[in-house]
């Protein structure tokens, strides 16, 4: 292979990997924030993302709603549904001596419910396109070619991540979420309402999933199975340490770039297994994940 081609592959692989990695990172953030504050691995994350895409599609294509209406409405509805699921389902499952596995199964139930609803709508029978508000065209970054949409996806993802970290670090809501994530009992003792914060976290997580969906949907195609992308987000979260928010972001970018590099320098067949190979490598070399911190043994 010529050096020119190797250099082209590296540039394009990194550029395209950062775009897809940004979306994985957003979904990984949504997974990690829920896990940190409620101890639930949300296996419906992909389907929440899928349902958000279809909801926006219905509003724009079927009900002819303008994008500036459809986008906020979609985000609000997904936030509301996610919060309602936490309040109406998960709290009851937890109250009924809910152990972790029951809560996870409840999220699996939600994933099947959402997929069933989209299939029942009749729009899930064939891949569909989501209208893009970004014009066609490409920009060259070095030798790498990215569409305008790619650039918007990447930039918007970074903005959403920045807002997310600002909320999480500097607002009262964010501090409450962090407190619940660190020590639930202590948070309750200082007057934080656990149930309210957990519901807010689910709403927040749903909102991020909806934004990820709205960003990537015009690039990909809408299908009932599009939620499988959450597998990559889980991989990103695991690589990052599963409880670390910066780790989720870095993990997303690592997975996105690794997929492209493996596809370009090894084989396209290997793209699908790349995230799992990365997980294995990270767990073998650094079992707590890249940002998971050292394993601490508490002496009692």
């Amino acid at each position: 292979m010529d050096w020119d081609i190797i250099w082209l592959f590296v540039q394009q692989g990194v550029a395209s990997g950062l775009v897809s990695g940004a979306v994985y990172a957003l979904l990984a953030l949504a997974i990690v924030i829920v896990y940190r504050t409620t101890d639930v691995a949300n296996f419906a994350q992909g389907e929440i993302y899928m349902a958000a895409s279809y909801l926006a599609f219905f509003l724009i294509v079927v009900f002819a709603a303008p994008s500036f209406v459809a986008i906020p409405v979609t985000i609000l509805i997904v936030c509301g549904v996610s919060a309602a699921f936490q309040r109406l389902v998960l709290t009851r499952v937890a109250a009924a001596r809910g152990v972790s596995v029951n809560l996870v199964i409840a999220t699996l139930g939600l994933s099947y419910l959402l997929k069933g609803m989209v299939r029942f709508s009749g729009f899930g029978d064939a891949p569909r396109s989501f209208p893009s508000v970004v014009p066609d065209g490409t920009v060259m970054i070095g030798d790498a070619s990215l569409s305008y949409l790619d650039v918007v996806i990447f930039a918007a993802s970074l903005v959403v991540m920045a807002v997310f970290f600002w909320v999480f670090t500097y607002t009262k809501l964010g501090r409450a979420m962090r407190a619940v994530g660190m020590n639930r009992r202590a948070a309750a003792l200082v007057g934080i309402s656990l149930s309210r914060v957990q519901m807010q976290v689910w709403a927040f997580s749903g909102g991020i999933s909806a934004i990820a969906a709205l960003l990537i949907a015009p690039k990909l195609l809408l299908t009932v199975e599009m939620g499988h992308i959450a597998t990559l987000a889980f991989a990103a979260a695991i690589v990052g340490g599963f409880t670390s928010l910066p780790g989720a972001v870095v993990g997303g970018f690592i997975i996105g770039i690794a997929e492209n590099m493996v596809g370009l320098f090894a084989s396209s067949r290997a793209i699908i297994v790349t995230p799992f190979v990365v997980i294995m490598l990270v767990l073998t070399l650094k079992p707590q994940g890249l940002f998971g911190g050292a394993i601490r043994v508490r002496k009692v």
Partner: protein
Amino acid sequence: MRKMSKMLGLLAGSALLGLSGVAMAAEPGLTDTTIKIGLFGPMSGPAQAYGQDVMNAAKMYYAKVNADGGINGRKIEIVEEDDRCSPNDLVAAVKKLVEQDQVFILNGGSCSAPVVAAKDYVVRSEVPWVMLNASGDGALYPPQPNIFGAMSISQRAVGGSTVEFAVKQFGAKKIGYINHDDAYGAWNLEAAGPQAKEHGATFLSESVDPKITDVTAPVLKMKAANVDVLILTTYAAPAQLILKKAAELHFNKPIIVAVNAIANLKQMVDNVGTKDAFKNVYIQELLMAKPGSEKLAWVYDMYKKAYPELSAQPGHPQVYMPYGIPPAEVVVKALQAAGRDVTRAKFIDAVEHLNFNSVMAGPIAFTHTEHAAQKSSIYFKFDGDDLTEVPGVFASHWTYKAN
């Protein structure tokens, strides 16, 4: 002595009658006036578009045959089952048709994986099975005594035909090929590579997961390899992503899109999003002419007459509707050739001697060792709006060789 020979004669006569009675009893689904055929396909569910109107086309053909007097004094009686293109549902449907409804032959299957799931049962049952429009390579190779199919095309023939077109139309010396990394993809790749080699062309393939979302790697590799032509034999969604990515990466060589990705051309254009991506795109067609054209008008007219309400609905007739005609023709022609004393064995023998032109690009031809009928395609240049036919018929050369 004469009494004795009379007795022996009577005994021999009754034995013969008994034997013939056994012979008749061994052929379920056959009466003096009817032949029972088990017709199945996806009448509901997400894959309905692949088979609902294909079944309707077969039914209208059988209805026409019945209206014209039937076959050798018998009318065709249809028992329908919905397989939803699901392996479980298809196997259940086939078992019901064979064991409960006792059909004479099976005629069905629009999706490859489900028909492969039913293969072993059907082989054991020894009931002749003429597939509808499934590629069905897994059930057709190696050839099974009682299974016939690929009247539309097999996946091997998809691969061989697209390569033939690339070489003959574009003089391609370096062929890029993106397929799936599943059995479906392996089947079409198995014929494509050797056909390229036969023409002395270099063949580069990239196999991708059907759920792939980022197609940068396979497309960029094809561009970097400077292939003369790129063939896509993926399903619709990956093909659409690849067309979009090829435009983004300024890949400007001809792209041939195999039939696997073309259930709905308008949807394809909508999903790709830009007509710029269709500047140099060719699509494979299995019918003898453009769907809805004059040569095929009789099929569409027959459909409108048979299903006036359905044909008035949007989306009907479905794209694959005419594919239902050749399987029904195979059944009818083989039954006619097998004669009034038809048996399943005679029917199978008759199918193995069929060679006729139907509505497809190439002849419907079976032999004792080739149970996949159709191997040719025609091609259209597609600019996102209009289809322009490229002259010629392009056939796959791949043949099954037992190890």
